[in-house]
């Protein structure tokens, strides 16, 4: 009979446990080194003088203030949108709208910002309208206005999606009762919506707050001056322009403490939102409507869609002419193509690394027994969130500064950090589909001896190729759009696409900038399109899932 306890290739449990453990340990060591070098450098600073500096106190105050305002505005926009989408579950364009709201996850910040400038900037469409209707208005995008606008643009769709998921998971019997009783307005809110939303609000607020707290690219491009500077930008300036390393380190420590604390709050709340489009078509239960509610809802959703679409349209319409000029003194493609090459050189390894790292981590978590062994791979999925990329980058920058000779080393480091930063998101994408193989199926596979490599190749691979392709696309896109880490380690003479775009924005070459933005956008579309084609199973393997998202009780 079987001489070997594990007959299939790579079926010893160690193969699932150890690589993820090593990865987790490596990450912990890397972070420890980064933070350690930062703390050492910070120790040499006169902490009192940093904390007492008017400028820095202003920076900290502004960072918190803009983040708070952003959270408030985001919720103000997201809540009605989520409620409306939850109420009307079947209207033409709903799924398109949801798709549009997913876009903010992958749209590179700097591209969106260039679009926002195209709409609300000095020569923007909306500004032009304002000039016509309200001559003498004092609207200016740069400063707090622009920051808040961009934050709402990015976070309102995210927040609305999370809230919508909560609202859609309200058990339908409860909805039916509310509908039968004719509840609406305040009482519908109190009986149905508030109980569904309340548990996730603190976590959601913390999430949005942290995202706004660490949004580097937005502040860099729209901040417009020392009056509107946040911690991350101050760190960057201290490192790259003032060469005041101790001050940068102190700021990074402050940043780490605030962010770490907030993420801790988020995780304690167990805010689990899935990044996978898991739309289920629930037969909506109609609640009683106010007179005119339909009109109001239509208007609201139309306005929100317009808000999301306009910047993208602005990029497309302004970028297209610039991409189509082949003549003239300088063709845009020379710069574009070399920047694309650099971006891909960084993003492809980062994406592939993030996906493999995520798989190893998930395998390791599922096999690990005991608190310590479980904690190591688990930390891989959270640590990159708690330690913001710029903070980790700062630490490593301080550590490696004398040794960082050439660009290649810098790019390797950027690719590595980008890959790490993508890990938590990629893990989120893969975790759900991986868990779709239920206990029953796993038992059957065990009995048949489909273990180790065979289990991966024969059972998981057909199940996972689609999510894997999507995860890879996310990983590449996140790294491709990165503007924070590359700003620390890159050199201005050899920009990646986001850096090139930033440079063009900074020197007011708006049409070039729009061209670069559109190019980057198209590149993303190509990446997602290509990977979704690759991820599609062969035709005869496409199976019809028996979809029963809300199993009806037998007697219904």
């Amino acid at each position: 009979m079987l001489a070997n306890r594990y007959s299939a290739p790579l079926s010893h449990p160690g193969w699932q446990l150890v690589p993820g453990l090593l990865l987790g340990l490596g990450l912990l060591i890397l972070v420890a080194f980064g933070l350690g070098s930062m703390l050492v450098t910070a120790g040499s600073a006169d902490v009192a003088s940093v904390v007492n500096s008017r400028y820095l106190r202003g920076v900290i105050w502004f960072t918190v203030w803009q983040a708070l305002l952003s959270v408030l505005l985001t919720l103000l926009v997201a809540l009605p949108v989520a409620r409306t989408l939850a109420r009307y579950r079947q209207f033409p364009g709903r799924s398109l709208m949801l798709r549009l709201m997913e876009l903010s996850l992958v749209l590179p910040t700097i591209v969106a910002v260039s679009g926002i400038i195209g709409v609300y900037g000095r020569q923007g469409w909306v500004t032009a309208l304002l000039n016509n209707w309200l001559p003498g208005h004092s609207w200016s995008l740069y400063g707090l206005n622009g920051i808040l606008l961009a934050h709402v643009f990015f976070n309102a769709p995210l927040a609305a999606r999370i809230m919508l998921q909560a609202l859609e998971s309200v058990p339908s019997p409860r909805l039916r009762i509310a509908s039968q009783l004719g509840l609406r307005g305040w009482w519908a809110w109190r009986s149905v919506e508030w109980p569904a939303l309340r548990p996730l609000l603190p976590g959601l607020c913390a999430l949005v707050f942290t995202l706004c707290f660490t949004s580097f690219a937005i502040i860099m491009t729209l901040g417009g001056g020392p009056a509107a500077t946040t911690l991350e930008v101050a760190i960057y300036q201290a490192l790259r322009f003032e060469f005041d390393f101790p001050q940068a380190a102190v700021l990074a420590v402050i940043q780490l403490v605030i962010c770490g604390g907030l993420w801790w709050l988020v995780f304690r709340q167990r805010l689990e939102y899935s990044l996978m489009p898991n739309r289920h078509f629930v037969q909506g239960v109609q609640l009683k409507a106010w007179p005119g509610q339909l009109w109001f809802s239509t208007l609201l959703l139309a306005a929100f869609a317009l808000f999301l679409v306009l910047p993208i349209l602005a990029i497309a319409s302004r970028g297209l002419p610039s991409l189509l000029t082949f003549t003239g003194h300088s063709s845009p493609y020379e710069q574009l193509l070399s920047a694309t090459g650099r971006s891909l050189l960084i993003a492809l390894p980062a994406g592939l690394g993030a996906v493999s790292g995520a798989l190893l981590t998930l395998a390791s978590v599922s096999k690990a027994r005991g608190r310590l062994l479980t904690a190591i791979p688990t930390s891989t999925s959270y640590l990159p969130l708690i330690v913001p990329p710029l903070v980790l980058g700062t630490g490593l920058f301080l550590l490696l500064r004398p040794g960082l000779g050439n660009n290649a080393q810098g790019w390797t480091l950027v690719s590595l950090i980008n890959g790490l930063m993508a890990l938590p998101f990629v893990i989120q994408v893969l975790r759900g589909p991986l868990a779709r193989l239920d206990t029953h199926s796993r038992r059957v596979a065990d009995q048949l001896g489909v273990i180790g490599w065979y289990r991966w190749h024969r059972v998981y691979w057909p199940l996972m190729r689609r999510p894997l392709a999507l995860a890879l696309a996310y990983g590449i896109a996140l790294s491709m759009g990165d503007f924070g880490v590359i700003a620390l380690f890159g050199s201005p003479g050899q920009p990646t696409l986001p850096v090139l775009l930033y440079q063009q924005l900074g020197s007011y070459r708006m049409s070039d900038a729009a061209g670069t933005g559109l190019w980057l956008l198209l590149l993303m579309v190509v990446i997602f399109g290509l990977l979704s084609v690759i991820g599609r199973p062969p035709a005869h393997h496409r199976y019809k899932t028996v979809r029963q998202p809300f199993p009806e009780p037998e007697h219904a």
Partner: protein
Amino acid sequence: MLEVKHLRFRYPGQEAAWEFHFSVLPGQCIAIRGASGSGKTTLLNLIAGFLQQESGTIQLSGRPLEQLEPWQRPITSVFQEHNLFEHLDVATNIGLGLHPGLKLTQDQRHLIDEGLLRSGLPGFGSPMPGDLSGGQRQRVALVRAILRRKPLLLLDEPMTGLDPEVKHNMRALLLEEKARGVTLVLASHDEEDRKILADHHWNL
């Protein structure tokens, strides 16, 4: 001969442990009787190795099984449902039972086709399980179980809820297995199943 001796098990938080003790001769079928929640499925999962016993032994032809991993035990289970991988086609589902890495010989591929034919599902290799009816899915699971040629078959309500014709077909296949010398452990609510298949009864 299958000998289950003083096999004890309890779920976390359960006060009194279950104890199972019985034996079956090769080529015979024992029917496990008992109300739902009395531990029928638990017993089958213990024998298959999906659950770990507290104490006791399981022997098949004198060979102890209780320390082996599920894939090392010469056993095939057929559950009431969820026997198939939903995202793999029928032929792959059966094929994985013959070689866990799907490295099949031409003969084995032929066996799969033949097995499907014998169970009244000719040419059903390429559909996905989701495209089949409940009865068809159970027959596919049974084909896989039979083709594995293991000396012990564990049947956990394998025919519950199927229509009479399918039941008839499946029972006939199972009787053939018995005649071949396969030992059957059957947990079933169905009086008729037990009457036709079982040689002994054991009450939980």
